[in-house]
């Protein structure tokens, strides 16, 4: 029960939360609209929200920088999927194994800790040198964003698994491989799904950086082209698309996380 003594911490009803959220969003859009039509700033710097929406709508059907917005998005999602799936496919098994074999933990952790603070955007020049404009560059950059949370969540899940499950597995004479796949993996599953959600978000955030070095299509590429043409609405329409798709990805993974927790009887 929230305490009523401190009114600033009193929980609000769902309706109140919704109304406050709507007020915040309306205020944001209203200020934006007011500033853009007031004429204080040049139009090309700050188009109104309506202009951005109209531009986005226009881009749905008419091509810019060689493709329509859906086609750009599809190409982006393709690179993104490769990067994130690769990050999960490497990060989760490696993290689990590190959580089980102490020597592997000691072997990998210094290298991992040394590399993981290099932001995805910092990989861009290196990736460009390696892969040129091929698909490898963006995949590498998205991977660099999505990989650490995948590895860390699996590692934490395995490392801090309830000791009693380990003891049961040992008592039942379970091999290392089966302990990892049938005890550590399912025991860490809620943690792993949470890590995948964070990784998927960071991977998506790395997308534009990844597409700075792409020469064909993609939302990031479209935005860079919009910038060269001094088309601020195009740039902002790209931002809108990235924000919306990122939100959708997060909602989908949130649902998955909730259903995992429900099936496990956790929530």
């Amino acid at each position, binding site marked *: 029960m929230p305490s009523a003594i401190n009114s600033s911490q009193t929980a609000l009803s769902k309706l109140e939360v919704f109304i406050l959220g709507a007020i915040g969003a309306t205020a944001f859009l209203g200020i934006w609209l007011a500033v853009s039509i007031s004429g204080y700033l040049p139009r090309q710097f700050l188009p109104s929200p309506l202009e951005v929406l109209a531009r986005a709508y226009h881009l749905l059907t008419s091509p810019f920088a060689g493709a329509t917005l859906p086609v750009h998005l599809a190409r982006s999602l393709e690179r993104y999927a490769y990067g994130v799936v690769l990050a999960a496919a490497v990060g989760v098994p490696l993290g689990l194994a590190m959580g089980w074999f102490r020597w592997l933990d000691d072997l990998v952790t210094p290298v991992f800790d040394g590399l993981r603070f290099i932001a995805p955007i910092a990989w861009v020049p290196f990736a460009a040198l390696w892969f040129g404009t091929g698909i490898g560059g963006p995949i590498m950059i998205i991977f660099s964003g999505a990989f650490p949370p995948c590895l860390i969540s699996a590692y934490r899940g395995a490392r801090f698994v309830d000791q*009693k499950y380990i003891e*049961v597995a040992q008592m039942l004479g379970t091999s290392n491989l089966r302990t990892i796949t049938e005890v550590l993996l399912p025991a860490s599953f809620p943690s792993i799904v949470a890590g995948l959600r964070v990784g998927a978000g960071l991977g998506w955030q790395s997308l534009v950086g990844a597409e700075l070095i792409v020469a064909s299509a993609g939302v990031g590429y479209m935005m860079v082209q919009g910038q060269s043409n001094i088309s601020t609405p195009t740039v902002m329409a790209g931002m809108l698309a990235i924000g919306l798709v990122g939100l959708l990805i997060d909602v989908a993974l949130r649902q998955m996380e909730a259903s995992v927790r429900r099936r496990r009887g956790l929530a």
Partner: protein
Amino acid sequence: MSAIVFENVYRHFTRDGKSFPALEGIHLAVADKEVVALVGPSGCGKTTCLRLAAGFEVPTKGRVMVGAQPVQGPGPDRAVVFQQFALFPWKNVEDDIAFGLRNQRAPALARRERVSAVINLMGLEGYETAYPHQLSGGMQQRVAIARAYVLDPEALLMDEPFGALDAQTRIVMQEELVRIARVNPRTVLFITHAVDEAVYLADRVAVMTRRPGRIKEILDIRHVRNTERWNDRERIEDVMDLESFVHLRTHIWRSLREEKIGAAP
């Protein structure tokens, strides 16, 4: 031949650089197919004894043998039933029970037969595909016991097997265990807080001193049980009313109470 033997077992724990004795010279031999209960005041090292036999811990001095082999790490020849059941939340009843058999690479058909036999024995028919969170505490404990039984272990080690159950379920499970032990006798070492439970279930009851734990006395229940025909009575309360039962229970209680009073600062 003894199935479980503690030979002058010492166990010390170190905390903050200091050494604390938990067990001091435990001598105990559990015979083949015998059921021995370990009772003692809280913190006397009962659980440590069980964990030594299970292989989760190693003695500081002395040795623990199971089936004439020194214990070296946990293994399926010494099945443990944990107080908090410790069922895998992600496995259904059938898969949880079959887990240990799959480690032994038993052929699928033989495995299914053994699993379904144990499911019948434990009265778990119809719950094969249920998950732990869908089961009551009593049913979860049945699964935990089934998971141990199915391995056909040299010894069953039970850590307060009914401690987490409500009073009524506890009685049902105690009666069940007696029934199962008749069908399928096993070597059992179990820990309990409940003196009633120890006297009702065990062939012998070993009373431990307060920490550092030693075996204070061992009471043989079998003679009284046989001459007073406890086994002819179906219900636990019928046995518990018997003068012979009350006598033993009171004796153990007094013995434990001495330890607790002695422990007070």
